[in-house]
């Protein structure tokens, strides 16, 4: 992306907005906070573009690094202020005119997943949220998390096992 090139930046926003919202949803943020953080992420990419170093990873990796940090800060701020924006007030469902029966099933599954994700520590949640971004490879996630690709696989495996356990426990109740 050429610096100052608003058109290229617009393309970047359109290309990454879907994956970014997917990531923020898995982080347990609601629609309003997700939008706020997604906007802030893109604004920072624009404002601090001169700090981007192509030799340290792709622009996508850099964008998700910013988003991850903003999301984790938002979660810790909410926790310290004893806000409950991610607890019972679960994020709204993102669906575009699905069939009622299908919509209900999707909604229930998402509700179940969110509840389980919210029970995970933020670090594990961030890792799982990143792992499922199709645009990022394991090496990219390792770069964002600041550890080796091997460590990412181990941590992701553990986090997924923990998530599965939480979901099974919830189902058993």
């Amino acid at each position, binding site marked *: 992306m050429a610096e*100052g090139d608003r058109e290229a930046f617009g393309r970047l926003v359109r290309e990454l907005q879907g994956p970014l919202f997917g990531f923020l949803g898995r982080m347990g943020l609601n629609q309003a906070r997700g*939008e706020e953080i997604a906007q802030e992420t893109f604004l920072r990419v624009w404002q601090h573009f001169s700090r981007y170093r192509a030799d340290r990873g792709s622009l996508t990796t850099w964008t998700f690094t910013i988003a991850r940090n903003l999301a984790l800060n938002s979660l810790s701020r909410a926790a310290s202020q004893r806000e409950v924006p991610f607890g019972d007030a679960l994020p709204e469902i993102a669906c575009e005119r699905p069939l009622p029966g299908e919509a209900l099933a999707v909604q229930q599954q998402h509700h179940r997943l969110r509840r389980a994700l919210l029970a995970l520590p933020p670090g594990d949640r961030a890792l799982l949220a990143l792992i499922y971004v199709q645009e990022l490879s394991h090496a990219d996630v390792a770069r964002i998390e600041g550890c080796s690709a091997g460590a990412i696989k181990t941590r992701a495996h553990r986090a997924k096992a923990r998530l599965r356990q939480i979901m099974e426990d919830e189902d058993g109740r």
Partner: protein
Amino acid sequence: MEDELDRLLRTPILRPPPDFAGQVMKRIQHLPAPEAVPRWQSAWRWLALAAAAVPAMLQLLAFMFGMWAATAAG
């Protein structure tokens, strides 16, 4: 269970609102275009860092030599 979990994690929980990109572009219109850091400026920073590091290293070595001299004399 694993397949279901993978599938669930892949489905987007949140989606961007219809004109999200437009909103972002509207906001950046009020911001200045990002400025490039000139190469010479970056090189100058490294030079300044090296210039500060050399006396610091010399001071550390002098301290270590002083400690060694004091213990060897005793």
